[in-house]
């Protein structure tokens, strides 16, 4: 076996010390079962503060809206609800998320309703005074109708736009920036129609801003969309509308892998393995989107960029600092000079380092395919941590039952399989290297799963237990915990006032 291809996770302080408390984590799983999700509500507040620091650096006002879809926890939401209402809000994409946000202490004026909306969702949003981030013209018509029919107050709306690439002449002569198509929002070329409708519905809605959410890591595309919105805000004002905010959505990203070199070594090895130049790195030689065509690698790799030089607040800072193509100034300067508020909707990035998913090791046996490869069966399945679904590749942290074991067996390659009777139930398709062979009873901790990975796909297949979720709070050298639904930011777990 050559050097183990580790992809060790980035683990920042509070999460790192929690991982150091292995006996505590073992006792939690003993009591509550495997799998188990553990959340650090304090960290999401710190993340919001890091985004706010970028706002301050650029002298910008506006709100950070947590995209609730990234995690369904009450603790995270309640902790954010306790933050300054002028700075932190929540983005909800379903009626249930909206009810949950209200139940966690968000008042309607701190809530942004996004995504496609049924009449019930629109009604409830308007009823509680949430801002409606309009997905389509039809939604606008429906909303206005509901406001009139039920005598609701005027609803604040943002118009969500898409299709920025097709704007003629934008981006300078001769250059066209292609963009991934989105099925959400109104194409920019139809913005006239929507603004006219907003004017027509002036008795029922107030335009408070423009919005977009682009599914891309490309800064240039986002910079262009932002600048385009600044130009369109001007058109809105010229029409006599008075929007104030530009909502630039989420997609700020998370760096999962600690070490750039490990990430690079692994992805290089993937290309080589696909070409047959080295043994497979994955279950049955899966290529994550790459394929070998006559000795040349074709296709594009379907993986989340595991190591990112700029993620989260750093990415926002870069976006705000990049010179804009038409007006020449950086988006941060443009927003400031035009007196616009900036809204952002980070999901994954706000949940960065906020939690981990624990699984008990149930069984360890040789694969029969190599002298040093093993199958490790976990008390968890691919629905509980949807790492594969999101293309996130990162090693779990081994937490031995009785502290570190001797034996000194050294690194070992294992395939992590789940508790379903399905060939496809692999926690990850990757051959994972662990510092030592685990034993039944040990725990594997999947770090940084709070954003989308934790409970996005969990289902009741085969009646396996669903993960319970607990919130933990550090207290000196020890940790206190409570069930997620029992967490409130004003009391310590257990009910003692802070």
């Amino acid at each position, binding site marked *: 076996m050559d050097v183990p291809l580790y992809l060790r996770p980035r683990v920042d302080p509070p999460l790192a010390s929690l991982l150091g408390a292995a006996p505590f984590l073992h006792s939690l799983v003993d009591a509550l079962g495997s799998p188990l999700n553990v959340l650090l509500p304090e960290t999401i507040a710190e993340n919001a503060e890091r985004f706010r620091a970028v706002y301050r650096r650029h*002298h910008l*006002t506006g709100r950070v809206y947590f995209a609730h879809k990234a995690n369904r926890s009450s603790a995270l939401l309640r902790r954010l609800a306790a933050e300054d209402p002028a700075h932190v809000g929540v983005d909800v994409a379903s009626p249930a998320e909206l009810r949950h946000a209200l139940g966690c202490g968000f008042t309607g004026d701190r809530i942004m309703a996004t995504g496609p909306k049924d009449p019930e969702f629109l009604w409830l949003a308007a009823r509680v005074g949430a801002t409606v981030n309009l997905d389509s013209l039809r939604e606008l018509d429906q909303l206005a109708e509901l406001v009139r029919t039920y005598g609701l107050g005027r609803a604040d709306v943002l118009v969500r736009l898409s299709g920025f690439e097709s704007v003629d002449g934008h981006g*300078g*002569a*001769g*250059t*066209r*920036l*292609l*963009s*991934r*198509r989105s099925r959400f929002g109104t194409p920019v070329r139809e913005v006239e129609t929507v603004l006219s409708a907003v004017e027509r519905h002036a008795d029922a809605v107030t335009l408070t801003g423009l919005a977009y959410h682009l*599914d*891309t*890591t*490309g*800064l*240039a*595309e986002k910079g262009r969309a932002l600048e385009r919105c*600044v*130009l369109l*805000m*001007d058109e809105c*004002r*010229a029409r006599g509308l008075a929007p104030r905010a530009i909502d630039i959505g989420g*997609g700020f*990203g998370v760096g999962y892998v600690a070490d*750039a070199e490990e990430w*690079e070594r692994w*992805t*290089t090895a993937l*290309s*080589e393995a696909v*070409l047959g130049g080295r043994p497979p790195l994955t279950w049955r030689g899966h290529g994550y989107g790459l394929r070998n065509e006559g*000795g*040349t*690698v*074709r296709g*594009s790799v*379907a*993986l*989340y*960029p595991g190591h990112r030089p700029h993620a989260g607040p750093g990415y926002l800072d870069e976006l705000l600092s990049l010179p804009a193509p038409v*007006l*020449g*100034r950086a988006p941060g*300067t*443009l927003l*400031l*000079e*035009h*007196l616009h508020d900036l809204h952002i909707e980070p999901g994954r990035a706000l949940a960065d380092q906020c939690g981990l998913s624990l699984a008990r090791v149930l069984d360890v046996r040789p694969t029969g395919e190599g002298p040093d490869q093993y199958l490790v069966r976990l008390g968890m399945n691919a629905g509980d941590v949807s790492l594969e*679904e*999101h*293309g996130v590749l990162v090693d779990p942290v081994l937490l031995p039952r009785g502290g570190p074991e001797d034996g000194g067996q050294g690194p070992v390659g294992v395939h992590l399989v789940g508790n379903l009777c399905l060939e496809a139930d692999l926690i990850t398709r990757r051959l994972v290297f662990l510092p030592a062979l685990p034993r039944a009873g040990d725990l594997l901790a999947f770090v940084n799963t709070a954003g989308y990975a934790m409970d996005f796909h969990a289902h009741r297949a085969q009646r396996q237990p669903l993960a319970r979720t607990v919130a933990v709070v550090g207290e000196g050298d020890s940790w206190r915990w409570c069930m997620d639904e029992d967490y409130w930011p004003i009391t310590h777990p257990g009910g003692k006032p802070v």
Partner: protein
Amino acid sequence: MRYDSITEAIGNTPLVRIDPAVHGLRNIDLYAKLEMLNPFGSVKDRPAWHMARPHLEGAGAGEGTVVELSSGNTAKALALLAGMHGLRFKSVTNRMRVPEIKELLLLLGAEIEELPGRSECLDPTDTDDPLTHFHQALSEPGSTYLHTDQYFNPRNVEAHAAGTGPEIVKDLDGRAPDWFVACVGTAGSSTGVARVLREHDPDVRVLGLVAHKSDFIPGIRTIDEVHQVGLFDPATYDTIESVTSGEALDGMLTLVRRCGILSGPTGGAAYQGAVRHLRDADSALDGSGRRETAVFIVCDRAESYLSYVRARRPELLGRAVRGHTLASLTEDDVRAEALSVGVEAARRRIAEGDPGPLVVDLRSPHAYAALHIEGSVNIVDELFEELVRGGLPFGKRTPVLLACPVGEKSLRYAALLTRMGHPEVRSLAGGIVAWRDAGAPLVRE
């Protein structure tokens, strides 16, 4: 030399010896093949012409578009060739990271399509891959695209096998060098030259240089990216090594400042990578009485990479500071010398002052047009900085009120103007934002 067409000036580039005092190798003669002296400026002139020629010379004037996935020299050569033959040129790329090159392409009349970034949320059903669209568009019936396909087209390699390689052998008096060093982009030049050299001497050693994985050197690929190149065959190279952008710049500086060779970063990478690799071989030759020869390729010229240099080694392009600048003020200077005035007092001065202050809005013209203080003039900060460098832009008897978004920039300028001797400059405290928040009126153009 008299030619009927610029294309006749492609090829026959010089082979220039690098002074041993510069590279320090005692037993190896190092030569630079100056592909930068091709008429369009790079090693890509040959393959671009060789790939496009059969189509261009056959094409009716003004029909169709030449397309290529290129962010640099191939695009440049093809744009010029297409233009000469009355065709259009389109470059599709996600690597247009050097602004001068992009602007040069626009000057040449190229259309540029930039591919989007990666998807943030993985969608396994995604068929929206722009490259796929690109290839679909090319193969649509009736499409008038000519795709030169530099990463897969064997004519790319042939151009070098027919030209670059034989020229090197000829200039070395009929012998192949012992070493050949080339950066790998499309692998065309290294593959074509290596083939010819090996025909002369199977023992020639070929060193392929790629960019360090996390780094960016315009025009060459990283070790992962070369596997996606159809012309790339690992067997072509005895060794493949990676170089960093830092090494590329070091090499470029040596060539530019000590050898009189106006090379770009890839030439620098080839030089630096060659010397790094040859050092051991050179020591091994000590005392053997043998001399060896090595050739590397200088792909293109320095001028297009100034912003690349500026981003990585700003000190190399440092401009001397002259006149009055903000940079000459410390935070303490600003605190000590600048005077500001709140919104209410400013409104009073504007209404009642005699003379009232000249209000200067330092924001961009677009923001100013959208909303500004009535009667203010707009001098965008970049311009204002240039203006004050030369002296005070208004008379000392005119009171001045400077405004920017939050009153930070204007405060610095207020300090500067005060230092320059203006007796009555104020900065609007809290800026236009505070003005708006106080409910004071703003007008549109």
